[in-house]
């Protein structure tokens, strides 16, 4: 028998003498079960349905309430008739009842508080674009929850959030871009302050 063969025997014997715990572990090992393809497909389909329903419900609410308010506004328009109502606020009752946005045309700064519901102030398209561009400059630390949620409405009617509450989810979450991890940038904060100050 060669030395190599002898050493192989020694190795085989040494493997035979490993700790009982490793033998036990290997004997009782059960691999993590992989999810079968069809189960994954069913879950994906169910998740998609859930998302679709989740998106459709708030949108339906939004559309219905907007239609109702639009109808009311047309009736009242003869006397007041402003293009935009500056800082249009909904009553507390309305906010609780519909919790949806006022009808807004064009670019605007929109915010919402628990006490007053939604408010907005119209801004120029370029100002809206500048504000949106400054979102990415915000720090990564979570914004502090001051109870106010802010969005910028673009001319095309998209809603973008430069700063949001830390709470998970949001009213009409399917409508908005939602970035709760992004703290508002100083630039965006200054601009928003200026817009509100200009409003008087």
């Amino acid at each position, binding site marked *: 028998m060669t030395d*190599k063969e002898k050493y192989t*025997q020694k190795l085989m014997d*040494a*493997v*035979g*003498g490993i700790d*009982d*715990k490793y033998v036990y572990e*290997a004997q009782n090992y059960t691999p993590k079960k*992989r999810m079968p393809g069809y189960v994954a497909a069913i879950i994906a389909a169910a998740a998609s349905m859930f998302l679709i329903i989740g998106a459709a419900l708030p949108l339906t609410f939004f559309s219905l309430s907007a239609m109702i308010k639009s109808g009311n506004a047309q009736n009242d328009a003869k006397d007041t008739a402003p293009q935009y109502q500056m800082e249009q606020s909904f009553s507390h009752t309305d906010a609780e009842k519909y919790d949806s946005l006022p009808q807004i045309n064009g670019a605007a700064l929109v915010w919402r508080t628990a006490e007053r519901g939604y408010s907005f102030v119209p801004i120029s398209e370029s100002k809206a674009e500048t504000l949106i561009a400054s979102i990415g400059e915000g720090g990564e630390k979570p914004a502090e929850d001051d109870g106010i949620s802010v969005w910028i409405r673009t001319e095309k009617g998209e809603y973008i959030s430069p700063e949001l509450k830390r709470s998970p989810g949001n009213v009409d979450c399917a409508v908005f871009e939602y970035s709760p991890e992004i703290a508002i940038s100083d630039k965006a904060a200054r601009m928003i302050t200026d817009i509100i100050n200009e409003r008087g």
Partner: protein
Amino acid sequence: MQDKQIVDLYWARSEDAIRQTEIKYGKTLYSVSYSVTNSSRDSEECVNDTYLKAWNQMPTDRPDMLGAYLSKITRALSVDRVRRETAEKRGGAGAVAEELSELIPSDFSMDAHIENEALKEALNGFIQSLDKQKRVVFVKRYFFCLDIDTICAQTGLGRSAVKMMLMRMREKLGEKLREEGLL
């Protein structure tokens, strides 16, 4: 019956110990032996020899993990039996020994007396350093002498993954043994 109760039966020299062992571990021990010998007749004999050896050792030994303890006896007896066979008749242990011999250089000369205990310790250290999945694959292959397909079935891994894993582990084991002056 719990392992502890079976061990107590051995210590009490009750013949029921062997019957209970056979009920609980008979099939496992047979498969351990069959993986090594590839022979039903040899496996049955090795399992019976295991009971006898356990009967003789048990008043001294008090194993915590009876299944692992008996498996080690069965494996050792099966490997001994395979060694007595001619090369053609060698079972799974032959293939495993060949694989392990790959990490030994062909001009290897065993000048120094290598202690079995040192080798065992080095192996335990090596196995401990592996993550659980690799450890299980290593033990299944080199302790239980299971073939690659069986390991794949028992671990849910693919053939090439297991083969690659084993090859890398052999290389690492060779490195460790050289570092410790055991190869």
